[in-house]
């Protein structure tokens, strides 16, 4: 019911989860129709404007609506220490008006065309979007093109907005024990990879952030050759491309700063941290360093490895019939919650993350051992045919389900393109998953899920205000 009015960070975890549930293919239909269907349904029109801006258009005529997104290759992983959170703070400033459309006017214009709009920032990208009636597309495109280069930076606006960002940090992280755990876990798991920093930024960095920092960041990165326009919906691709030329084509290409590699140094042994916080529940977060899809694309690992890791995560936690739910939440009844997720879709390699909350009266050590035992089993025993079939069936169905949302389709296209995997990856995903064998899952478990590459963070609850406890018990 509550309208999403928050300029939010991208829910990276959610994206990862939903990723399982995506891409093209109709393997379940006859082979003859598979190609036909693919051509009809999955065609993505791709163009690069003269100034280097990429345009991706996908038609979906089910309803007279469209989504337009502008993606910039900029996010926390481009920041250095001391300026963490700058990409996200700049995202907030992007709503503060341009030379043509003053602060406040922008929101009115977007509202007047019946659009829902917002933006999100992650480690690897910042994206802006409008969802609207398809016949209003041009107005949204004009607005997005305008703020790509013509933003006005008003010191008074910045002063207020940075306070809003700090409130966002308090709300999102500081008052949420599991968010704090995740933040510090990342900072310890990664020594030099930029993935160690929180997207929202450390509070001290927000306190020290200057308007000039935001201006500098905007000039460097908000340029057509660093952006991708994505439009999905009831639109004519040719017209969209013409429109893109008209509004975005007027800008010149600009030289981009060099992006340093910052490859994470190899981990040489387990890292453990403990966080003691006022809380009620203990919580565990463990991560094994893994290659990403990007590692395979760049030839660093075999093509099948990331897919095997993806399937492995779903063997453990791909629904109520997966191993964590079956063995730990039901079975032994030692977990109130347990999760596994492969963070394999970034610009840089990340981790396989395992999380857990113990069941009532169960010690964390018991749950931790059980989670690690499940990992060990993957290294010694082959997963069953029925488990593998189940994951594959979910991937096939999930791909169809996800097409129900044009926003989701646009977000997949934009993110894949922006992290460097390329939107064509959507066509490779299902075949990649379907080709995974039980042997391969065992192989990647043995190769990557090892103690030398493990980081463990544990939340130990401290008492909350006692008087409050009493009140609540009433």
């Amino acid at each position, binding site marked *: 019911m509550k309208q999403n009015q928050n300029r939010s960070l991208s829910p990276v975890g959610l994206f990862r989860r939903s990723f399982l549930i995506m891409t093209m293919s109709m393997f379940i239909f006859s082979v003859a129709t598979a190609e036909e269907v693919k051509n009809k349904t999955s065609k993505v029109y791709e163009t690069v404007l003269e100034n280097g801006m990429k345009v991706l258009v996908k038609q979906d005529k089910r309803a007279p609506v469209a989504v337009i997104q502008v993606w910039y290759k900029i996010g926390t992983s481009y920041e250095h220490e001391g300026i963490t959170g700058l990409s996200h703070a700049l995202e907030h400033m992007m709503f503060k008006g341009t030379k043509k459309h003053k602060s406040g006017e922008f929101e009115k214009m977007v509202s007047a065309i*019946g659009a829902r709009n917002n933006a999100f920032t992650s480690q690897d990208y910042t994206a802006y979007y409008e969802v609207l009636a398809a016949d209003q597309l041009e107005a949204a495109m004009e607005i997005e093109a305008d703020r790509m280069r013509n933003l006005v930076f008003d010191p008074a606006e910045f002063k207020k907005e940075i306070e809003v960002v700090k409130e966002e940090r308090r709300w999102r992280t500081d008052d949420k024990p599991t968010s704090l755990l995740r933040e510090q876990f990342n900072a310890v798991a990664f020594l030099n990879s930029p993935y160690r920093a929180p997207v929202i930024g450390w509070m001290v960095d927000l306190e020290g952030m200057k308007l000039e920092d935001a201006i500098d960041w905007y000039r460097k990165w908000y340029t057509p050759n660093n952006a991708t326009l994505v439009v999905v919906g009831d639109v004519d691709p040719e017209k969209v491309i013409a429109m893109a030329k008209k509004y975005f084509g007027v800008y010149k290409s600009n030289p981009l700063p060099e992006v340093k590699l910052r490859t994470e140094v190899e981990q040489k042994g387990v890292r453990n941290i403990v966080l003691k916080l006022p809380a009620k529940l203990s919580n565990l977060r463990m991560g094994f360093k893994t290659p990403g899809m990007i590692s395979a694309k760049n030839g660093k690992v075999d093509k099948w490895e990331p897919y095997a890791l993806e399937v492995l995560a779903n063997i453990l936690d791909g629904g109520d019939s997966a191993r964590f739910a079956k063995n730990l939440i039901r079975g032994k009844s030692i977990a109130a919650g347990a999760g596994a997720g492969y963070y394999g879709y970034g610009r840089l390699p990340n981790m396989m993350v395992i999380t857990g909350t113990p069941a009532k009266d169960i010690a964390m050590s018991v749950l931790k051992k059980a989670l690690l035992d499940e990992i060990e089993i993957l290294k010694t025993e082959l997963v069953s045919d029925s488990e593998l079939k189940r994951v594959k069936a979910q991937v096939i169905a999930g791909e169809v389900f996800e097409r129900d949302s044009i926003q989701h389709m646009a977000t997949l296209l934009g993110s894949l393109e922006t992290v460097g995997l390329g939107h064509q990856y959507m066509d490779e995903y299902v075949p990649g998953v379907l080709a995974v064998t039980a042997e391969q899952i065992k192989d990647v478990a043995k190769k990557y899920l090892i103690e030398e590459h493990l980081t463990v963070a544990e939340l130990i609850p401290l008492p909350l205000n006692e008087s409050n406890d009493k009140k609540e018990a009433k």
Partner: protein
Amino acid sequence: MKNLLRIVFVTMIVVSNQLASAAPKIEHWVTDSGLRVYYVNVPELPILDARLTFAAGSAYDGDKAGLSGMLSGMLDKGAAGLNADQIAEAFESVGAKFSAGSARDMSWINLRTLTLEEQMLSALYIWQKVIEKPDFPDVDFERLKKQALVGLQAEKQNPSSIASKAFYKNLYGDHPYATPKNGTEKTIGTLTTKDLKDFFKKYYVNKNGQLALVGAISKQQAEVIANKISKALLNGGKGEGNKAVAIPEVKPLTEAKTVRIPFPSTQAHVMIGQPGNKRGDKDYFSLYLGNHGLGGSGFTSRLMKEVRVKRGLSYSVYSYFIPMQENGPFMVGLQTKISQTDEAIKVAREVLEKFQKEGPTEEDLKASKLNITGGFPLRTASNDDIIGYIAMIGFYGLPLDYLNTFTDTVENISRDQVVDAFKRRIHLDKMLTVIVGGKAVNEEKATEK
């Protein structure tokens, strides 16, 4: 896409272009056993969404708070002799998604499946079993109770959950809407599988239910599914059953009240409100339209402009009505760092007071109408959106042309109507304010009322 569907469903007549018109075409009928059915044909994607709802939310828990929610959690833990593992396996091995849950008015059992023959039939078969013969195994129930207790602990470390619970408790007093949805330590501890079975027998019956079906199935297929589900509900000696007894009317608050709950957070979570309106309320559209400009439209709303944009006091600030069977809450909410709590509340109150007295300007109203009517196609753009609407229309007995007339109704509301509705319905001197966060201060005497 159309070709694909012709191949998959050779017998189905593909009705295309229908969706290009504004609102989906809802077909409605009642099965012989009294189950109300709402169906929309959407042929484009090979997906079926099914949602079975009952007037069986937490408002029907009585003194067994948490019962409705626990029942939802138990449905797939054993049915027709299959255990939880087998049920989960049966859905997921064909890629189907099962879920069940409950709110205050309503409980629901959902299914999403591909419409390919093998997948759809398998998924519907197991869905039907879960609806017909849940076993409520004791072992699973004991485990679920423990999980529920962990859930209650999680609420206690979350200032937003604490605020919301205190808000409902103080807003509704002895009305069933005050019942904490997830129960309490005490009530969860005393629940038994007999409670589940009794609740199931009483409320999960044809005459208390509605079935919504959306997707690439024909009317004929929809009828077959509806009859099967209706029969499933009949079985087990339940008969057609009865509609649940109506939820009592909500009494308005009689005086202003402030509840402060200390909590070691960096922000205070503030909720200000009173009982609001209900589904089918004669003021529904006036209040909806007015609230759009007050705090329901994000960045163009007055609350957002004054609290966030002008003063940087909160990341999120909003107001909304939650229309329910009886008067659901109207609330204004925000979060701000502890030291700014009083200031933020003052600003939000001022915005609300001015709005209640003067209403929106003609210009504001026009802007709200443009946004609502212009954005109307977004409301039913996906199958997921459509089933949400038709399940709501069915459950609350709204007219079938609710969506068709939606934009006209909004267009025709005058400023006077909005002003009048806010004056009559919002009582500034009888607002409940809940503040969670900060150290314990001198307890205000109001807290204990």
